[in-house]
C-alpha cells in the first residue's frame, strides 16, 4: 500500500519544504469525507431534515458559529504551525468568501467573521486542498491541540512537542466515544523548560520530560482552565511512559465522559469534576480504568509516533554568522529595538526566532488583512523555511531565521505594519473579539485594547516598563485569558452599561496563578488611566528588573489599590 509522503509543491528557487506534518492518503480521504459530510448536513439543514437544534452541534464541530453580525468560521491551525502555502490559501479564503481579513485567536486558530452558510462547504474544500480543516474547533469535544509556538526552534527545548500533538490531533479527531462530552476539552503541550503553552491552564496539560533513567515521557496535568471558575491544573501523573500516552488520555476521557456534570454547563468542565471528586479519588478512577482497559489495543504503535516525528525533523541549518546584524542595529535604532523585543534565541548557532507583531499601536489585536497574510507567507518563503507559527499571544512567529537575514526580514515586515517592536511588552495586548463580534459577549474588548495600546505607544516608556502582559476578555468565558495576565481586564455589563473589572497577578507559566480582583468595575473611559496608574505604581514598587508578577507577589495588592481611588477623584473633577 502506498503511504508515501506527499511531495510538497516546490516553488521555483526554493527547494526547502517546511518541516511539518503532511497528510498521507488516509488523512486526505478522511478530511475529504468530512467535507462531503458537512455539505450533506448543510443540505439536510436547508431541507429541514435536520432541525437547528440538531444541526448546531454539527456546525459547531466544523467550527461554524453564529455571531452577532454573521456566521463565523474558526479554522484549525494545529499547534499553530502553518506553511506559507496554507497562509496564502487563508488569504484567498478571506478575499473570496469573507471581507478580506482574518483574526488569530488565543488558541492558535484563525477566524473568519463573515462567511455565509451556503459557502462554508466550499471553504472547507479550499482548506482541505491545502491540508487544513475546521474540525473540532468548537463543540463539546476534544478541541484542536495547542503547543509551544517556539516548538522545534527554541534553545531551551527538550523535545519538539508537535509530533505528540499531531498524534493526539489524529487520535482525538472524530473520536467515536469522546465527541459528545459534557463540555469542550482542551489540551496543550510543551517540550521546553519555559512554559509558553499555558499547560497548567488546560483540561489536560502535557509536559515532555526525561526521567532519571533517561527515558522521555510526559508529566500529566489535569483540570486547569479559565472561564467562570478559573483553576490551576493538578498533577495526576509525574511520569507517563511515552508509549502509554493514548491509553492514559483515553482513561481520563472515559472518566470525564461518564462522570462529568451535564446538569449545569458552568460546572461541566473536567476541572469541576476533579474539584468535586477530589484529586485522589479522581486519580484512582483514572488508574482503575487504565488498569481495566485494553491499553495495547488503544495505544498507537511506537512506529506511528516515529513516522509522524520524521516530518518534523529540523531543517538543515547552515553554519552562518550574524553578518552585518550589529552594523544594521547601530545604524537603525528602531531595528535595534525590534531585535531586542521581537527576536528570541534559536537552538542553532547563527539563527533566531522572530515574532511578527499583529499588535500595531491602536490596531485590532490579532487581525490581519489578506495582503498581510500574503506578505507573511512571502517572508516565510524567503527567510523562514516556508513555515510560520500562530502564537497564543495572537502574533505570527518565524521559527527559523538566519540572524544575517534579520534586517532584510524586518524591512519587509515594516512595509505592511507587521514590525511593531512590542512582543511581550505592554502593548502586546491579548484581546478576544468581545462584543464587536461575539454573540456571548457582555462588553467590548477590542476598543479597550486599542486605547491602552495608543496610551503606551511610546517605545522608550515601554522599554522602561519591560515585559508586562495585559489580557482582555469580553465576558466570563475568558477567551482573552484575562485571569492569567499580570493585568487582566474583564468586560461585564452593569445596569445597561459596559463595566470593566481589573485583576492583578495572573501567571500563565508553570508557576501559574489566577489573577485577583482589584476592586469594583470601571467605565470604559476610565480603564486606560487606571492601567496607567497601576503601571506607575509598579514602577515605583519594583526592585531591580523584577517582573510585575514578582513585585505583585512580594508587595501584595494593597499598594495597587490607590490606582482605582485616584480614578474616582479624577473622575469627580470632570
Amino acid at each position, binding site marked *: 500500500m502506498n*503511504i508515501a509522503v506527499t511531495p510538497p509543491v516546490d516553488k521555483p528557487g526554493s527547494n526547502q519544504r517546511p518541516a511539518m506534518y503532511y497528510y498521507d492518503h488516509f488523512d486526505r480521504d478522511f478530511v475529504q469525507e468530512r467535507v462531503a459530510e458537512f455539505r450533506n448536513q448543510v443540505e439536510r439543514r436547508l431541507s429541514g431534515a435536520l432541525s437547528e437544534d440538531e444541526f448546531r452541534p454539527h456546525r459547531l464541530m466544523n467550527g461554524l458559529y453564529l455571531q452577532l453580525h454573521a456566521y463565523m468560521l474558526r479554522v484549525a491551525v494545529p499547534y499553530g504551525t502553518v506553511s506559507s502555502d496554507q497562509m496564502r490559501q487563508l488569504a484567498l479564503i478571506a478575499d473570496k468568501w469573507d471581507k478580506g481579513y482574518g483574526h488569530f485567536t488565543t488558541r492558535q486558530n484563525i477566524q473568519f467573521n463573515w462567511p455565509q452558510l451556503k459557502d462554508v462547504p466550499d471553504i472547507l474544500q479550499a482548506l482541505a486542498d491545502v491540508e487544513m480543516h475546521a474540525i473540532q474547533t468548537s463543540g463539546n469535544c476534544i478541541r484542536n491541540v495547542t503547543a509551544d509556538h517556539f516548538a522545534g526552534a527554541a534553545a531551551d527545548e527538550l523535545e519538539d512537542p508537535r509530533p505528540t500533538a499531531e498524534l493526539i490531533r489524529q487520535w482525538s479527531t472524530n473520536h467515536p*466515544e469522546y465527541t459528545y462530552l459534557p463540555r469542550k476539552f482542551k489540551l496543550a503541550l510543551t517540550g521546553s523548560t519555559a512554559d509558553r503553552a499555558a499547560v497548567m491552564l488546560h483540561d489536560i496539560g502535557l509536559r515532555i520530560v526525561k526521567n532519571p533513567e533517561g527515558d522521555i515521557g510526559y508529566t500529566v496535568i489535569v483540570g486547569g482552565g479559565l472561564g467562570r471558575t478559573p483553576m490551576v491544573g493538578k498533577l495526576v501523573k509525574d511520569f507517563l511512559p511515552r508509549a502509554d500516552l493514548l491509553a492514559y488520555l483515553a482513561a481520563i476521557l472515559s472518566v470525564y*465522559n461518564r462522570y462529568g456534570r451535564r446538569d449545569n454547563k458552568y460546572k461541566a468542565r473536567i476541572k469541576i469534576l476533579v474539584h468535586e471528586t477530589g484529586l485522589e479519588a479522581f486519580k484512582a478512577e483514572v488508574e482503575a480504568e487504565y488498569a481495566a482497559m485494553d491499553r495495547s489495543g488503544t495505544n*498507537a504503535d511506537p512506529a506511528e509516533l516515529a513516522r509522524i516525528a520524521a516530518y518534523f525533523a529540523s531543517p538543515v541549518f547552515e553554519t552562518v554568522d550574524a553578518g552585518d546584524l550589529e552594523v544594521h542595529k547601530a545604524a537603525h535604532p528602531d531595528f535595534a529595538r525590534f531585535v531586542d523585543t521581537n527576536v528570541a534565541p534559536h537552538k542553532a548557532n547563527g539563527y533566531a526566532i522572530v515574532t511578527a507583531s499583529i499588535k500595531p499601536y491602536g490596531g485590532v489585536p490579532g487581525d490581519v488583512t489578506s495582503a498581510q497574510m500574503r506578505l507573511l507567507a512571502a517572508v516565510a518563503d524567503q527567510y523562514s523555511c516556508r513555515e510560520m507559527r500562530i502564537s497564543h499571544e495572537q502574533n505570527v512567529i518565524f521559527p527559523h531565521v538566519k540572524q544575517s537575514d534579520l534586517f532584510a526580514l524586518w524591512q519587509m515586515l515594516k512595509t505592511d505594519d507587521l514590525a511593531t517592536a512590542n512582543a511581550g511588552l505592554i502593548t502586546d495586548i491579548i484581546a478576544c473579539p468581545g462584543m464587536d463580534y461575539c454573540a456571548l459577549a457582555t462588553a467590548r474588548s477590542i476598543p479597550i485594547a486599542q486605547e491602552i495600546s495608543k496610551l503606551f505607544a511610546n517605545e522608550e516608556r515601554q522599554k522602561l516598563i519591560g515585559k508586562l502582559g495585559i489580557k482582555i476578555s469580553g465576558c466570563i468565558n475568558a477567551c482573552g485569558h484575562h485571569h492569567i495576565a499580570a493585568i487582566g481586564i474583564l468586560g461585564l455589563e452593569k445596569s445597561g452599561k459596559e463595566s470593566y473589572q481589573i485583576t492583578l497577578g495572573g501567571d500563565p507559566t508553570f508557576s501559574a496563578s489566577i489573577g485577583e480582583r482589584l476592586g469594583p468595575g470601571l467605565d470604559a473611559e476610565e480603564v486606560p488611566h487606571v492601567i496607567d496608574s497601576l503601571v506607575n505604581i509598579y514602577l515605583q514598587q519594583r526592585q531591580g528588573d523584577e517582573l510585575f508578577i514578582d513585585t505583585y507577589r512580594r508587595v501584595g495588592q494593597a499598594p495597587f489599590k490607590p490606582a482605582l481611588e485616584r480614578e474616582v477623584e479624577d473622575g469627580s473633577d470632570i
Partner: protein
Amino acid sequence: MALISEGKFIPDIWHHAAPEAAIADHTILPLERIAEATGAFGVLLPNDAEIAAIKPFLGTVSVIAINFPAFTDGRGFSLARLVRRAGFTGELRAFGNVLPDQYAAILACGFDTVEISPERAARQPEANWTAALGGRDHAYQRGYHTKVSILNRRRAAK
C-alpha cells in the same frame, strides 16, 4: 418505534414493558423491573448505569438497550464500550435520541441497532441511515468497531 439495523428499518420482535402491565416473552424491561423478567428478556439502561448493576443477569439477558436522553449526551457511547468489555455478546441497542450523523460512532462503540421514535424516523428516514452507513469509512482510533482504523492500516502497510 423504528428499529434500524445495518442501515435498514427492520421489524422488531421486541417490545418495551408497558407501565404496570404484566411482562411477556421478548420484553425489554427497565432496570428496576428486571425481577419480573420472563422468557427471553431485554433491559433498558439509563446511560449512567454502572456495570455492577447488570452483572447479575449479563449471561441471560438477550438485548441491552442504552437510553440516549439527548443526542448531545455522550455517556451512552462509553457505557456501550463497557457493556461489551464486560462480555455481553447479545444485541446492543442505542435507544432514543440519536442522529444518523452519529451512526458510525454508535456502531464503533459496539452497538448493533438503533431504536428511534416514529417522529424522528419520519424526519430522518431510512435513506439517511443507509447513507450514514456509507459516509464515514475512516477512523483514527484503534479498539473500536470502525470500518477502517487508519492506525491499524498504517501499521499493516509497514
